[in-house]
């Protein structure tokens, strides 16, 4: 995961590779020397304390930050200069922390506005989140927080991505809704073949979903392992993230 040279080329089997990436907003770097490889079907939990750089990592994958050095590859090709809109077309679905629902569009319009051909159709998204089918005529701003989160995930799926980026998908939601969304993500992990990167403050929840874990502190990767071993090692988890 780390320690590779900047010159180490990604494997063609990798979906996304980051090599020694430094990135941030304007002149200030937030990420420092990030190395990351994501293969098809991978599930990675990105953990860290507040301000560690987790959201910035996702924003960098989406082309929303300034990359000052290092390389980013998508399916082996240089990815740094590709604009955000093109990245979505190339197969990255982003569910940002703020959900970014279009308030005046209906649920169905929110879903179809991003639709691209592929296995994810309106029906399949509504099967995954039956609440969206019930609320399909409602405007985006008439939904609860949980429904908005389902809509944000559904809309990203309608892009038919190869890689899904989920930024704090459970943040601020009631336990019953968290459970519903968690079940949906579990289903995606098991059945869809999608690669998923999940940034989540609730570490145990994220580790129970993902296969691999990456802990970031002050913009650097300080730990990388499989999720299960980190979940089982409570002292290490506490040392890395503080008491939960």
């Amino acid at each position, binding site marked *: 995961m780390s320690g590779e040279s900047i010159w180490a080329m990604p494997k063609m089997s990798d979906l996304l590779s980051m090599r020694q990436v430094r990135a941030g907003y304007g002149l200030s770097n937030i990420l420092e020397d990030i190395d990351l490889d994501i293969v098809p079907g991978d599930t990675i939990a990105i953990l860290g304390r507040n301000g560690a750089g987790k959201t910035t990592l996702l924003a960098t994958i989406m082309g929303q930050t300034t990359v000052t050095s290092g390389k980013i590859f998508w399916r082996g090709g240089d990815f740094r200069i590709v604009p955000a*809109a093109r990245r979505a077309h190339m197969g990255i679905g982003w569910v940002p922390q703020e959900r970014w629902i279009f308030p005046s569009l209906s649920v169905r319009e929110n879903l*179809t506005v991003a639709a691209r051909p592929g296995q994810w159709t309106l029906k399949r998204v509504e099967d995954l989140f039956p609440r969206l089918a019930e609320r399909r005529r409602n405007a985006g701003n008439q939904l609860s927080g949980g429904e908005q989160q389902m809509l944000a995930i559904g*809309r990203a799926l309608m892009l038919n991505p190869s890689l899904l980026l989920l930024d704090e998908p459970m943040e601020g939601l009631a336990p019953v809704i968290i459970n519903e969304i968690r079940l949906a993500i579990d289903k995606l992990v098991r059945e869809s073949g999608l690669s998923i990167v999940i940034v989540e403050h609730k570490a145990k929840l994220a580790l129970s979903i993902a296969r691999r874990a990456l802990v970031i502190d002050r913009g650097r990767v300080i730990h990388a392992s499989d999720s299960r071993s980190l979940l089982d090692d409570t002292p290490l988890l506490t040392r890395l993230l503080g008491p939960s």
Partner: protein
Amino acid sequence: MKAALIVAGWIAAPVLYMALFPDSLVLASQILLMGLFALSLDLLVGYAGVASLGHAVFFGIGAYGAGLLAANGWGEPLSALVLTMLVAAIFALPVGLLVVRGGSLGRLMITLGIATLVSEAANRASGITGGADGLQGMDVWPLLGLFSYDLQGRTGFVYAWIVLTLGFLAVRSIVASPFGLSLQAIRENPVRAAALGTPVRARLTFAFVLSAALAGAAGAVMAQTTQVVALNSLGVHLSADVLVMLLIGGVGRLYGGLIGAAIFMVVHHWLSDLDPVYWQIWIGLILIGAALAAPDGILGAIEKLRSRKQVAW
């Protein structure tokens, strides 16, 4: 059933109007064409979220285009209409590319600057445009080779009605299409829309071009039915007027431009008859009152009333 009623209404309304108000057909044609002009601006402002203070440039290109063709031996109205729409669209492409690069205030400045430039260029080119005296000597041929433009304005009224109907159907289809939805998404948040794969500048430029073509159609039919083209048809004043019409009716609501154009034109006509000296003062006062009473336009106010009633029930 509902669709059949709407179609019947669209057909019956002009017939009924012609029977009831045979002496007001010229004003009615102008209202219809200003409604189409406002509708074209609604596509740009209301759906794509691109503010413009220079939309009359495209109306003027349509008007001068059709006028120049008719004054120089090509008076066939339908082919001239299509041709001038194309010219307006072609002119709009580089302008649109420039405009969408700016922020909201920058867009206002760019469109205002272009309107000033084009207006002054038309004034200077008086040998072609007629300058301050307006374009004269137009000879518009009968519509479909059958219907001449009568003094009462019947042919002009029906022609304007048909063009408005087609324009309305086109805009309605556009805003309901995935392209139209993406425009609304961009209006609400361009960064968000880009992250979902929407090529923001390309879509806005295309919306700008479509809107300009529609404005050009309104201008062309106005020139063909009134057989007069003056410099104010591409001036900043008309750009402001059409924006006001849209604001009165309600932005981003399809019918808003039509309702706003009707109210603005009727009030304009009525007040200038009533008080030929100070009518603009009354217009100004009415506009301030309307903006305070219904900031989202008439349709916005109706929507608010409806939602209040629903809450009360």
